[in-house]
């Protein structure tokens, strides 16, 4: 077992290194082309925060087994706090523009602060909300998500129009956190590395006593408390931990968009960022599989991109064309189809890894060989 763990770490480190090297090679080869600057890099930013969002909701939905519909609220807190802190830093003269070395430090601090603030709100929401279960919890978290967005909407310094118009917007775009095309390319490594760190942190959490405790709570709460697990502590802890990552994803969102407005985090938002969309990502990937969330986040991003920009979608006519005009309808149909035909999602609780695959292939072969041997014996007996 120990040997296997060591092997797993080596493979994972190699994969992470390969991702980074592969990206830098890609950047070297395509760095100047328009496709790279205008499509690939912004897509990468979106994928990064969607992956963090899906994986962090999976901690609550898949591993802890509690349905939370307010995840976008935490993301909004992360986005706004990162944007406001960066603006404050800029006005305080800590950095002059994005090329100054202090900016990177400010950027990383903003991302961290966004996570911590979202986690604090998560804690405040979690303490009362997690006394409830099932549908009631879903409704109360939905309510809290909307309350958070509405509060931000009415804050004088965040504003009805968010940070989208007026002086705040201009400085967000030029000097603050919001990245234009060129800065997105320059700072894309921040998105990749932050995503990788977040994923590592989540995997470490799941593969420790915390992961065991929360999976036990998902399986049977009464038995978990009868086994000495302090269920309310672990529930609130996981909720807070998950909100932290939602905040980090929000900060990345603030970077990837030059403007922020609360309507993009509202529950009724028809775009990509609402809590139901994140739930669809988690369910599609498999509740209880972080690798599943990563893959389904990418799939859903590509789908969303195709619906919005794909030429084949625009060429559809009649009923299908009408349906694709309402992306939320497509996501809802995906959710229904997944629940009907594969309720466990793509991966279920299975974690994708090279070691698991090689083990499963070995087991499968052994099983086949055993069956063959048994058949031969039966034939011989006849």
């Amino acid at each position, binding site marked *: *077992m*120990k040997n296997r763990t060591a092997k797993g770490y080596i493979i994972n480190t190699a994969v992470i290194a390969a991702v980074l090297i592969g990206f830098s090679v890609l950047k070297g080869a395509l760095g100047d082309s328009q496709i790279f600057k205008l499509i690939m890099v912004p897509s990468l930013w979106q994928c990064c925060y969607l992956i963090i969002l899906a994986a962090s909701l999976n901690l609550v939905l898949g591993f802890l087994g509690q349905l939370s519909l307010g995840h976008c609220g935490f993301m909004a807190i992360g986005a706004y706090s990162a944007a406001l802190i960066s603006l404050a830093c800029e006005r305080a003269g800590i950095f002059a523009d994005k090329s100054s070395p202090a900016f990177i430090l400010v950027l990383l601090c903003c991302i961290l602060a966004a996570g911590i603030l979202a986690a604090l709100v998560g804690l405040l929401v979690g303490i009362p909300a997690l006394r409830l279960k099932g549908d009631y919890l879903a409704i109360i978290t939905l309510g809290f998500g909307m309350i958070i967005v509405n509060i931000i909407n009415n804050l004088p310094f965040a504003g009805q129009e968010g940070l989208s118009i007026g002086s705040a917007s201009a400085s967000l775009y030029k000097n603050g956190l919001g990245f234009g095309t060129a800065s997105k390319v320059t700072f894309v490594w921040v998105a990749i590395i932050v995503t990788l760190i977040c994923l590592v*942190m989540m995997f*470490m*959490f799941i593969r*420790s*006593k*915390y992961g*065991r*405790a929360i*999976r*036990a709570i998902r*399986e*049977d709460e*009464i*038995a*978990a*408390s*009868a*086994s*000495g*697990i*302090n*269920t309310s502590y672990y529930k609130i802890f996981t909720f807070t931990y998950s909100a932290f990552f939602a905040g980090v994803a929000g900060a990345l969102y603030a970077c990837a968009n030059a403007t922020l407005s609360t309507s993009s985090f509202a529950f009724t938002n028809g775009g990509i960022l609402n809590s139901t969309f994140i739930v669809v990502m988690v369910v599609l990937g498999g509740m*209880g599989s972080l690798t599943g969330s990563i893959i389904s986040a990418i799939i859903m991003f590509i789908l969303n991109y195709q619906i919005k920009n794909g030429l084949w979608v625009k060429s559809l006519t009649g009923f299908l064309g009408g349906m694709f005009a309402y992306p939320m309808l497509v996501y809802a149909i995906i959710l229904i189809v997944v629940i009907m035909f594969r309720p466990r999602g793509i991966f279920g*609780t299975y974690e994708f890894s090279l070691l698991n695959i090689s083990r499963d292939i070995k087991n499968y072969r052994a099983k086949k060989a055993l069956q063959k041997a048994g058949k031969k014996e039966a034939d011989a007996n006849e």
Partner: protein
Amino acid sequence: MNENKEPVLETRHLGITFGGLKAVLDFNIKIFEGELVGLIGPNGAGKTTVFNMLTGVYLPTEGSVILNGEVLNGKKTHQFVASGVARTFQNIRLFKQMTVIDNVKAAMTKDTGYNMLDALIRTPKFWKTENELTKKAMDLLAIFKLEGKAHQLAANLPYGQQRKLEIARALATDMKLLLLDEPAAGMNPTETAELLECINAIRKRFGISILLIEHDMSLVMNVCERILVIDYGITIASGLPEEIAKDPKVIAAYLGE
């Protein structure tokens, strides 16, 4: 009997009412170290209700539960477990989609001494604790001959082994008093005999006290040192197995008058 010693568990006038229904009334029991006490009674007599009060699932409306001299009234279930009571359930409640060994390890959570930071950066302390946990869990599983199935899902075990795993999980909480709620329910005679062996083995090995609810009279009469009989929430008899078997009140409760 060891009257001079402190009892592991003592209840004083324990009672609970649900609305107007008096489910359990004036329940008094003393269990000493290493004892195996049986709790029997017809269906619906309130045996499982007593268990639920002894583990903090129900809040008793009267009386108190005292464990090793510590009054546990109003505490939560996990605090009861921390002070040394563990239980199994009448209808098996395993963590079904977790592996057998993770079921046992999850029950050791409260004694796992690393914190979040250790888990995140995988300090030597983390590895040391995890290795110790694995070893302890495998030792426990070995008692129940489950070590070969450690990495299977708990849901895939046959019924008898699921029962055993539940006992192993309860033992993993490092308790002093084990409450077994109908451990032999639904088992065939061979499985019951095996279970009996296991119970005796763990008593010898861990020196724990056990309170047992059971319908299988041969099991109860064979292993219990003392027996309590309740009916309609009232303790109608208590004493040695031979006395209980002859008690006219008990016979009346089971067979009708």
